[in-house]
C-alpha cells in the first residue's frame, strides 16, 4: 500500500514542529528521515504511528484516512531505540504479543513466532528473557515483534543508535535484507548520515521542521540542492559564486543564472586532487590521518579548502602543494 502525506502541519504551543510536510512512501520503499536533533523527524514518525495528533494536512494509507484512526488500529510495526521489550516475558512471548492481543489461535501464534525467530536467526533463544540477551539480540527480537503482526508499514525510530559500532554495521545489512525479503514499506528515523545512505531507497533530509530534499542516497550526496544538505551529509567545501567564477571558471558554467549571491558551489574533498609541488600555490595548514586516507586543510587562493589524499605519503603541515579540481565536479546549492 501507499502512504501519502500532504501538507502535514504540527505545532507544539508556538513552536512549529512540522511545516507542510509532503511525502510519499511506495509499497516496497525503505525511506530514511535524516536530520539533526530537533528537526522534526521523530515527531513525523510518531504522527505516522498515531502516537501524536497533528494540526493540519492529510495522512492516508491507500484509500484509508489515518487522521482519526487510533494507533492500535493502524496495524503498523514500530521499533524504538531503547528495544522496549517486555522484561517479564520471554523472547517467544514478546514476539507473539501482538498476535495474542489480536486473539489469534495459539497454534498459529506458535508457528508465526517460530518463523520469525528463524528469520532473525535466534530460534535457540526463544525461552530466554530480554535481560539475558545482548543489545543487538534484543533489537532483533524487537524487530521480530514488530513484524509478527504483518504490519502494513514498519516504523524504526533510531533502531541502531544504542548499539556498539560493530553490531550496528552488522544490523544494518540484516535490516536491509529482511525488509527486501518481506517487501514491507519502511520508514526509519536516523541522525546518522552513513546509516541513511547505506540503507535507504529514498532519503528525506529534514531541518527545522521542513523537508530540505528528497532523493536517492546518490542524489543527496552528489547533487545536494540546499546548503544545509550539502553541509549535513558528508564533508563539503561551500564556495561563493563570485570566487568560483574568478578562480575555477570551468566549474562556473553550470551555475544557474540570476541571483548569484544566493548560490554556492558544494565541492566534495575527493573532487580536489592534491599534489606535492614546491612551487604550488597551496599551503597545507592541517593534516588529519584517518587510516585509509588523509584529510588535508589547504590554504589556496584566499580560501581554506578541505581535500583528501589517498594512500601514504601525504604532504605535511607547511608544505606547498598544487590543487586541481575535476572539471565536472560539484553541485550548486541554494545558500
Amino acid at each position, binding site marked *: 500500500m501507499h502512504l501519502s502525506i500532504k501538507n502535514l502541519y504540527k505545532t507544539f504551543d508556538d*513552536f512549529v514542529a512540522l511545516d507542510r510536510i509532503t511525502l510519499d512512501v511506495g509499497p516496497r520503499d525503505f525511506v530514511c528521515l535524516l536530520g539533526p536533533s530537533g528537526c522534526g523527524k521523530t515527531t513525523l514518525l510518531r504522527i505516522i504511528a498515531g502516537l501524536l495528533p497533528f*494540526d493540519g494536512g492529510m495522512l492516508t494509507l491507500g484509500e484509508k484516512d489515518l487522521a482519526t484512526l487510533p494507533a492500535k488500529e493502524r496495524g503498523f510495526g514500530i521499533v524504538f531505540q531503547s528495544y522496549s521489550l517486555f522484561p517479564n516475558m520471554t523472547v517467544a512471548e514478546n514476539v507473539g504479543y501482538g498476535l495474542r492481543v489480536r486473539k489469534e489461535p495459539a497454534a498459529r501464534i506458535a508457528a508465526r513466532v517460530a518463523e520469525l525467530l528463524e528469520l532473525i536467526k535466534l530460534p535457540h533463544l526463544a525461552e530466554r*528473557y530480554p535481560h539475558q540477551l545482548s543489545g543487538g539480540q534484543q533489537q532483533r527480537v524487537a524487530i521480530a515483534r514488530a513484524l509478527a503482526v504483518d504490519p502494513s508499514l514498519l516504523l524504526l525510530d533510531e533502531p541502531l543508535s544504542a548499539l556498539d559500532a560493530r553490531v550496528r554495521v552488522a544490523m544494518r545489512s540484516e535490516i536491509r535484507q529482511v525488509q527486501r525479503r518481506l517487501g514491507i514499506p519502511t520508514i526509519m528515523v536516523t541522525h546518522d548520515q552513513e546509516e541513511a545512505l547505506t540503507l535507504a531507497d529514498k532519503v528525506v533530509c529534514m531541518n527545522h521542521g521542513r523537508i530540505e530534499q528528497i532523493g536517492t542516497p546518490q542524489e543527496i550526496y552528489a547533487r545536494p540542492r540546499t546548503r544545509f544538505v550539502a553541509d549535513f551529509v558528508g564533508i563539503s567545501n561551500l564556495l561563493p559564486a563570485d570566487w568560483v567564477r574568478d578562480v575555477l571558471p570551468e566549474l562556473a558554467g553550470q551555475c544557474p543564472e540570476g541571483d548569484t549571491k544566493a548560490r554556492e558551489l558544494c565541492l566534495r574533498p575527493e573532487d580536489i586532487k592534491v599534489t606535492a609541488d614546491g612551487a604550488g600555490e597551496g599551503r597545507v595548514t592541517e593534516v588529519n590521518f584517518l587510516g585509509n586516507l588523509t584529510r588535508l586543510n589547504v590554504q589556496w587562493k584566499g580560501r581554506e579548502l578541505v581535500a583528501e589524499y589517498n594512500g601514504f605519503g601525504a604532504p605535511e603541515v607547511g608544505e606547498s602543494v598544487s590543487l586541481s579540481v575535476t572539471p565536472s565536479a560539484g553541485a550548486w546549492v541554494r545558500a
Partner: protein
Amino acid sequence: MSTAMAPAAGFAGKSGHKPKMASADRLLLAVSLVVPVLGLSLFFLYPLGLVAWRSLVGLDGSIGLGNYASVLASPGIRTATINSLWISALTTAVCVVLGFILAYALQRSSISGKGLVRASLALPLLAPSLVQALGLIFLLGRNGVVSQWTGWTIDIYGPVGLLIANVLYGLPQAVLIIEASLRHSDARYYDAAEVMGASHWQQFRDITLPNAKFGMLSAGFVVFTVTITDFGNAAVIGGDYRVLATEIYRQVVGQMNFGMGAVVGILLLIPTLVAVYIQRVASQRQFGGGSESAIPVQPSWLPARDLPLGMAVFAISLCMIVVVATVVLASFMFLWPYRMEFTLRNYVITLSGGYTPLWTSLLISLMAAGFGVVLLFLMAFAQKRLPPALARLLYFGAILPVGVPGLVLGLAYVLAFNVSDSVLGLLYGTTVIIALCNFYHYHSQGFLTMVTGMRSVPPALEESVTCLGGGLRCVLRDAILPFLTATTVSVFFFLFMRSMVTLSAVIFLFTPQVMPASVTVMRLDEAGFTLQAAAFSTCIMITVALAMLLMRVAMTYLGRKKAGA
C-alpha cells in the same frame, strides 16, 4: 527557527486531527481519575474545609473572627504556642546536629557496626510515638530505675523529658534526609580538592558542609513539623507543660469546644505549610545542583576522625535501643522497678476488650493499605495521562495532605462525620472511617512514591503496546504493572505500618467499640497501667516488625525475580 508562524490558509486549527480513543479506554481512564479524586475531595478536602469554616463559627453561632480573638486572648493557648515553638525549635536544633553526625558517620566513615546503627534508627518506626516517652519514664521517672538505684529525684515529666522523647522520635527522620543529601555528592570534587592540596578539614568545610546544607535545612523543617504536631509524647511525658497538640485535644475532647479546636488546628497548619513549602524549594535547588553521572564518594578510614565519631554514634544508638528495650523489658517485670521478676501478667490486659484493639488496628491497617494502594495507583496512572495543567493541579491536590498534621485531620473528621443528619454520619464509629483517615494522613508520601515508580516505566514500552494493537488495559497490565510491582508492595507496607502506629489522628475517632491499638496504649497509661501499656506497645512493635520482615522478604523475592529465574 520558524517559531510563531501562523498555519497557512486552509489548514485546520489546533484541534486538528486527533486519533479517537476507544470507549473502553476512555472508561478506564475516567474511572482511574474520578474515583481517587472523589475520595480525596470527600475524605480530605471537604473535612479540612469544615475545619476552616468552623474556626469562624463562634459558640453562639455568629460568624467572624471571634474564635481567633479569644484564642489569642487566652493565656493558656498563648503559653502553649510559645511552649510548642520553643520545644520544637530545640528538638530541631538537637536533631539536625546529631542527625548530621549520624548521617556523616554512616555515609563517609568506615566505622563498623553500621547495620546495628541503622537498625536502632528503625526502631521508632515500629511503635507509636509515645513509646519513647514510656521508655524514658521507666528509666528516669519518679519510679524509674535511675531514681530507684541512686536515690536522686529526677523530674522527667515536663519540657526536659518531652525534649528527649521528641529527639528520639525525630532523629531517624533527620538522619534519612541528611544521608540522602550526602549520598548525592560527587567524588570528583574531593579528588580535585585533594590534588589541589586541601586538608581533610578544609575538604569537609568547603565541600561536605555546603553540599549537605539543603539536606540539613530540609531535615530541620521535617523535624520541626513532626514535633510541633506530635501528640503521643506530649500526652505521656509532657506533664503540666502545655503544648498546642495537647491543647487542641483538651479543647475538643475535654471541653467540646470545636470552634476553638478548629482555630488551634488552623494555627498548627501554618508552621507545617511553611515548612513543606520551604522544603520543596530547597529540594528543587538541591537537585538542580547535582549531576546525573555523579561518582559516589567512598567511605574512608581516618582513625583520628572515626574513633571519636564511632563512639558518639554508638552512644546515640545505644540511647535509642535502651529506651525501646526498656519498654519491652518492663512489660515482662512484676513491678518495675521494685520487683524485677519475670512475669507474663502484664500481658493480661485488664482494660475492657483485651486484645481486640490489636485486631482492630490490624483490620484498619489492612484496609487503609489495601484500598490506599489501589487508589494511589489509579491516581498516578491517570495523572500521567492528563494534560499538563490538569496533571499539576491533581499533583498539588495529592500532596496537600502532607501539610496537614494528623491532629487537624482527626478533628476535621469529627466535624465532617460525627453528624446525625447526613449519610456521611453512618461511617462514624466504624473501622472504615479510621482506615480512610489513616490513608489520607499518609496520602502524599504514598503518592510521591507511586509517581516516582510510574516514571520508571519506559514510555516506549507503553507505545509499543499501543502500536501492537493493545488498548489501555493491555498497557496497564503488560507495560506498567511489571515495573510497578515493587513500588506497589512498598507503598502497601508503608501505609500498613504507619496506620498501625499512628495516634494523632485516630485519637479523635475511636469509640469504645472501635479502638485502635495505639489509643489503647495511651488509655492504659492514663489509667495507671503503665506496665500493661508497655506490654501492649510490645505487641504492636512485634506486629509491625513482622510486617517489615515480610516486606523485606517480598522485596528480595521481587528483586530476584527481576534479576532472572
